[in-house]
């Protein structure tokens, strides 16, 4: 085996009383792609932040190229040839590519010499690694895939030999992700070392040479990718066997429960986000809306659930219209049997500072079951919360615990329990498993299918294509605010990917 590019020995890191990293040992071989997988909160990001100088380890040793080093700031890391591409890009939106690349690496008080030097260097890097980007393009005008390329170029320009990528494909279409993987392979062939942090096991299998699995702050296993399987990795991550794809029977679609006609929604700036969208959801079926984040799905959900006003169009719930342009009231829609699991559970679906039991009535707090006159019926609320905790296996099973102290998966279960237990006719769900660990995903998917089998109309919006394909009976693809295609669950990923990228749509328009 080649010499190790990075060695981490006995790394420990605590935040207050929480031990985010416990005795971590990791060896990344030079010239390989090394994956790190784990559930949310397993400590992956903390570990990489220690390597990149954002945090200091409480104890342990870091060796780069065999030599012990101390990394106190990200500048130390850069000097050692470590570059990082963050999940959320660190780019100045109204700067050009070139300006972003030299930011912080200017050599002179005047920019001209830096820019000239950077231009030729960038040219070389682009040719060498197939990282074509127009150096004079302004960042905000570039698609996210190219913005990510700029981040990689930034790291390479600073002489990075070791590249850390944190969840790089979260914002990419399948095609863009494939392109990224080709770039990473090319970088590897040129002798660079790549550390890839992700929770998507498929990516790990597709591209890495070695994979390390983290669970609850510890490193539980390191495997050669060729010798492992997705099933084994999932089991290592969660600590037990998991079903990766839910089993479901044939759907029995009934009457139309939710009908959307020519719906148009604008955002605060007056930009049209949902453009003349029409579709129906029948009882007993799950309709999935696929699309890259930011193509109008969020606004669509908000308009249907009464949170956001629509410009025009018609939405019928059980054959009766919803007031869209006037004073749509989410409370009234709830009374009419529309339950909504919002995309953003931290700010919309839950109040994190509340106790679990208080969140279990959010939106239904004016229901007389929970009230005694103007007072909250604390006993009834508590009994109800305990009941849901048991039914949905919410852990820890403590209705008095602050909601912020639950894990992402359990927080999502709190929202789902609240909305599903109201026995709604229509359930709309945004990003059902975003930030949710593998074990809880399985549970949530099963519940959604159970709702379908009870004859409810279920509308699911998700940026995870796997999820859409595994859950939906029909798939709608949104691109630039429009529904650009409808496919059955048997549609291939490539086919949906093209629709999501707007390829067919543009061809049709030309």
């Amino acid at each position: 085996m080649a010499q190790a590019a990075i060695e981490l020995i006995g790394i420990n890191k605590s935040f207050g009383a929480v031990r985010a990293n416990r005795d971590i040992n990791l060896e990344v071989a030079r010239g390989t792609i090394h994956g790190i997988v784990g559930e949310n909160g397993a400590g992956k990001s903390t570990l990489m932040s220690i390597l990149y100088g954002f945090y200091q380890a409480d104890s342990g040793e870091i060796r780069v190229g065999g030599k012990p080093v101390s990394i106190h700031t990200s500048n130390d890391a850069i000097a050692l040839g470590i570059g990082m591409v963050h999940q959320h890009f660190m780019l100045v939106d109204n700067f050009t590519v070139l300006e972003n690349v030299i930011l912080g690496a200017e050599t002179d008080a005047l920019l001209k010499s830096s820019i000239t030097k950077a231009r030729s260097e960038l040219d070389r890097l682009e040719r060498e690694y197939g990282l074509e980007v127009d150096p004079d393009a302004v960042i905000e005008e570039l698609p996210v895939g190219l913005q990510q390329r700029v981040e990689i170029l930034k790291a390479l320009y600073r002489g990075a030999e070791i590249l850390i990528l944190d969840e790089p494909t979260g914002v990419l279409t399948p095609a863009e992700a494939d392109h990224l993987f080709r770039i990473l392979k090319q970088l590897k062939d040129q002798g660079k070392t790549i550390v890839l942090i992700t929770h998507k096991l498929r990516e790990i299998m597709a591209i890495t040479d070695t994979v390390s699995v983290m669970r609850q702050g510890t490193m539980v296993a390191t495997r050669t990718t060729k010798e492992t399987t997705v099933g084994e990795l999932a089991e290592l991550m969660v600590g037990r066997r998991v079903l990766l794809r839910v089993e479901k029977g044939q759907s029995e679609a009934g009457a139309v429960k939710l009908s959307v006609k020519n719906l148009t929604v604008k955002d605060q700036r007056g930009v049209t986000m949902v453009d003349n969208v029409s579709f129906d959801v029948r009882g007993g079926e799950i309709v999935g809306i696929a699309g890259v984040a930011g193509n109008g799905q969020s606004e669509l959900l908000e308009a249907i659930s009464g949170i956001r006003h629509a410009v025009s169009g018609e939405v019928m719930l059980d054959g009766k219209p919803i007031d869209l342009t006037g004073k749509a009231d989410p409370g009234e829609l709830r009374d009419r049997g529309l339950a909504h699991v919002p995309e953003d559970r931290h700010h919309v679906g839950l109040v994190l500072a509340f106790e679990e039991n208080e969140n279990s009535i959010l939106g239904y707090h004016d229901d007389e079951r929970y009230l005694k006159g103007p007072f909250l019926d604390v006993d009834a609320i508590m009994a109800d919360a305990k009941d849901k905790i048991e039914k949905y296996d919410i852990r820890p099973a403590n209705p008095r615990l602050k909601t912020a102290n639950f894990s992402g998966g359990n927080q999502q279960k709190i929202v789902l329990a609240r909305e599903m237990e109201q026995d709604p006719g229509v359930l709309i769900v945004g990003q059902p498993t975003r930030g949710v660990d593998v074990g809880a995903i399985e549970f949530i998917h099963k519940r959604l299918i159970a709702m379908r089998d009870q004859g409810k109309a279920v509308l699911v919006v998700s940026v995870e294509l796997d999820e859409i394909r595994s859950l939906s009976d029909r798939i709608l693809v949104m691109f630039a605010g429009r529904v650009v295609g409808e496919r059955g669950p048997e549609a291939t990923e490539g086919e949906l990917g093209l629709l999501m990228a707007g390829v067919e749509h543009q061809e049709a328009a030309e």
Partner: protein
Amino acid sequence: MSTPYAKLPAWADYGLIPLINLSVAFIVAGFVVMLVGENPFRAAVILVEGAFGRGTGIAFTLFYATTFIFTGLSVAVAAHCSLFNIGTEGQAYIGGLGIALVCLSLDSVMPWWVIFPIAIVAAAAFGALWGLIPAYLQAKRGSHIVITTIMFNFIAASVMVYLLVGALKPAGSQAPQTRNFLAGAELPKLNWVIELFGAKIRSAPLNICFLLALVMAFLVWLLIWRTRLGYEMRTYGHSPKAARYAGISETRIIITAMMISGALAGMMALNPVMGDQHNVAIDFVSGAGYVGIAVALMGRLHPVGIVLAAILFGMLYQGGAELAFEMPAISRDMIVIIQGLVILFAGALEHMFRPYIQALFASVSPKSVGMQAVKGTGA
């Protein structure tokens, strides 16, 4: 990722940390006293004895505390709905106008126990109305409540000056204040309660408004944590988006919360006006509204905390007055510095010592900081 700080047991959170903050405030204040050449230990003894040493001192401390309980509750109610009501000062001042109108017109014909309930309603109504306008502007026009309530303090002050040198002033009087109320508008004193414990009181303004303040503290607790309205206010306070999602009307909740806040502020005026001065004089609120902000923050927006913080500030007012009298080197302004230090350490720097204490707890006993609970199995 996990929260940086784990939580502490309740007794440390609500008892130990405020105590440490308070001690540091007094230690720093001690250095200030040393700086002007006085003995800080003697100063501390005078301060505490002045506030609690004699019956009269206790009565005065509780009288001041009554005022601060009202203003503290007022600020806290608005704060639970994430509204920073700086206008408690003006709302209390206008509340005084309501009381004046009731007392001046009824004090010759009715006994105090009839006038008092009417005056409570009038004070609350006038204060609530003074809170309504900024609330409406915030809810409908998006005018920031901090700016508008500050402006309304100035408007209230001007209105009151106009009335107190004009319509409300008895003809021929030189003082900018109403005529003195008759016996019908004088509230019974509570000094006898302290005398029951054997202390002697010469003359002190402690009156039944103290009991009213305690009742209101309980009602505020009930409102915030036990009613549907309080639930909606807290939801909006933590997350306006979640409130929208839950079908809570933003306009209604902002206006309701500010009117309750204004009503509590207005009721503060009962204490000095009907309980002590027996007239409405210019600037009778004299900053109690602003002290209410400190009291509410120090009391962690919880009625129990607010009552305790109000008593602390009552002690600083009363003990501080004694201190200024006993130690000529320490002027009134020095007392304000000490109060400022308390606010600084207990309010603004509340979290300064928290990480160290948490680390200490974590190393001594991980269980006590809820390790098990925080790291629940990821289901």
